[in-house]
């Protein structure tokens, strides 16, 4: 997988979108301010022009044309805010830079006076004087140098700044996100390549990327543990089958021996048959778990009461439990209705009771209880035996799992795996907890709509 280009990252795209929106809002703000300042300024300019024009007309009326001509010559010039023009009734220019346009009177826009820094078009007022001359007074400076222009310039700078900073921010932001995403991608690639211990480096941050990294790491942990369980299952099958098969071989070798008595041969063969029976039982258990896990049995589900199935099991095990010096008690007053396979559920409870009876010493107490709590319905099989260390509780449902201490006890380590498989098939959750002392296995029934309402 090629490394993602900076500009194609979602981080950069998001930054670009934000930048675009932000620039647009700066531009809109600029336009609004421009329009406001500009209309204010235009009104001021018009006022100034009108006052100047009136003043000049008054001078003309009072002192005549020569006086006006002199004034225009004196006031006009490079430094003046205004540009002037005076023409006689026939249109011949008398004074100033500007030529009055045709016969038009009133407010007009004229080509700018030939001056430095003059605006391209100038606002002008054309008036007719008493003697028929026409006077033009135009703005020569304000439009080009007034606040409007300053506003436009300021906003253009602001826009440029926004764009620059925004682009920089986008690059930095996406580079940072990209670095973290790349770290995830690289970790995932390493895992794909087979390095199962690899994890995404977790920063102390608590943002969504850190959360994502943690979630991924937890997922990798889970996959790794499943894989290990799988691997261990293979090794465990080999380990568990090698012993009885080796024993069978020994027995058969002995039976083949030249000087074995008929009696001894018979016994050896019987022992070999018993061993192979055990091996077949193990295979059968593995297949059964596989079959349950495949979910094919779900088709034949019928309404059953798990408490009733449990009562049957307790009933069946009671004499054997007593004989073995253990107390088996049941409190199954709460019905546990669910849709399921009666036979599998019976075997599930039988495996739990079996397990409890086998891994506890004489004098132990095994209790099978159904209960209703705010969390829903549950069935618990609890004992007060030696229990299972806290750290191992999660693993006892794995195939072939056996506590080291239990290796001496006969069993194939598949009983609880079948329990877990049957529970899952029925949508139940299956948890082991410390019974202080002892082990308790709690099966929580799926919540049904009926139970909830």
């Amino acid at each position, binding site marked *: 997988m090629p490394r993602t280009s900076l500009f194609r990252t979602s981080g950069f795209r998001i930054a670009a979108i934000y930048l675009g929106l932000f620039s647009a809002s700066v531009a809109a703000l600029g336009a609004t301010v421009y329009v406001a300042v500009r209309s204010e300024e235009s009104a001021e300019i018009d006022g100034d022009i009108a006052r100047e024009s009136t003043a000049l007309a008054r001078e003309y009326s009072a002192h005549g044309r020569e006086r006006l001509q002199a004034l225009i010559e004196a006031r006009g010039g490079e430094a003046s805010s205004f540009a002037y023009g005076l023409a006689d009734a026939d249109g011949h220019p008398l004074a100033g830079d500007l030529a009055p346009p045709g016969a038009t009177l009133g407010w007009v826009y004229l080509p700018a006076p030939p001056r430095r820094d003059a605006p391209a078009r100038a606002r002008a007022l054309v008036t007719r004087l008493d003697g028929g001359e026409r006077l033009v007074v135009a703005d020569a400076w304000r439009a080009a140098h007034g606040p409007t222009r300053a506003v436009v310039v300021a906003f253009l700078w602001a826009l440029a700044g926004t764009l620059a900073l925004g682009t920089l921010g986008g690059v930095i932001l996406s580079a940072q996100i990209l670095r973290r995403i790349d770290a995830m991608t690289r970790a995932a690639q390493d895992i794909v390549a087979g390095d199962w211990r690899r994890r995404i480096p977790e920063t102390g941050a608590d943002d969504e990327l850190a959360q994502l990294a943690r979630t991924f790491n937890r997922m990798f942990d889970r996959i790794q543990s499943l894989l290990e369980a799988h691997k261990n299952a293979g090794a465990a099958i080999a380990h568990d089958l090698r012993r009885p098969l080796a024993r069978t071989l020994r027995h058969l070798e002995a039976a083949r021996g030249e000087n074995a008595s008929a009696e001894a041969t018979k016994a050896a063969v019987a022992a070999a*048959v018993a061993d192979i029976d055990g091996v077949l039982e193990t*295979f059968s258990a593995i297949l059964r778990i596989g079959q349950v896990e495949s979910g094919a049995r779900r088709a034949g589900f019928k309404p059953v009461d798990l408490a009733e199935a449990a009562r049957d099991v307790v009933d*069946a095990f009671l004499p*054997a439990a007593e*004989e073995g010096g253990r107390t088996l008690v049941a409190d199954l007053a709460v019905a546990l209705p669910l849709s399921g396979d009666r036979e599998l559920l019976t075997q599930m409870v*039988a495996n739990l009771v*079996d397990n409890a009876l086998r891994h506890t010493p004489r004098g132990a107490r095994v209790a099978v209880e159904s209960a209703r709590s705010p969390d829903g319905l549950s069935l618990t099989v609890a004992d007060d035996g030696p229990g299972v260390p806290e750290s191992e509780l999660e693993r006892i449902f794995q195939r072939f799992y056996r506590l080291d201490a239990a290796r001496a006890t*006969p069993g194939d380590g598949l009983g609880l795996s079948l329990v877990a498989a049957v529970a899952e098939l029925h949508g139940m959750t299956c948890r082991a907890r410390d019974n202080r002392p002892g082990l308790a296995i709690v099966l929580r029934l799926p919540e049904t709509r009926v139970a909830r309402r």
Partner: protein
Amino acid sequence: MKILIVEDDEDAAAFLAEGVVARGHEADIARDGREGLTMATGPARYDVVVVDRMLPELDGLSLVKAMRAAGTATPALFLTHLAGVDDRVEGLEAGGDDYLVKPFAFEELMARLAALARRPTLGAEPTMLVVADLEMDLIRRTVRRGGQPIDLQPREFRLLEFLIRSEGRVATRRMLLEKVWDFHFDPRTNIVETQISRLRGKIDHGRAAPLIHTLRGVGYTLRAPH
């Protein structure tokens, strides 16, 4: 017993036939489902038919269905493979009478065939079962031995009833689990042994002639003393 074996695997068929003959019974072999159906519904009357679930031409289920449709009531026992442990219900629904998962102990097969072959024909169900001086009243649910009433738990009663009904034949541990407990799996706890020993304590304890006998590695049998 005259037994029809419908099995396409030659080795398996020969092994079955030899075992059956060695125990003093007669055996015929059919190589596929069609041949099996012809023989089962033919003039030769068999006491029991052993049918493999997977057969060429006509599978075991269809064979038994067709056999029942043709009006042949001969009891049928299905043989299923290890992977098909859940085929039992299907087999029974098709009209089979029992099932056995391969591989099996030969004694288990013989015990089941004997149980099937001597299945009482439908008719007046007895209300009283008697073996020597043991009497079981099925209506009043009481048991007496030598005239003395014996108090039995419901499970003990069912166990004894099954043993009496199979009088003289072998009841294997697995048969008992299936018929008395309705357990189609083998719990590791010795529930059968314990229950039998309790029943013995009540029926045979202190008696000169015990009725319940253990057949080591095979099962149990109840028979009248000679």
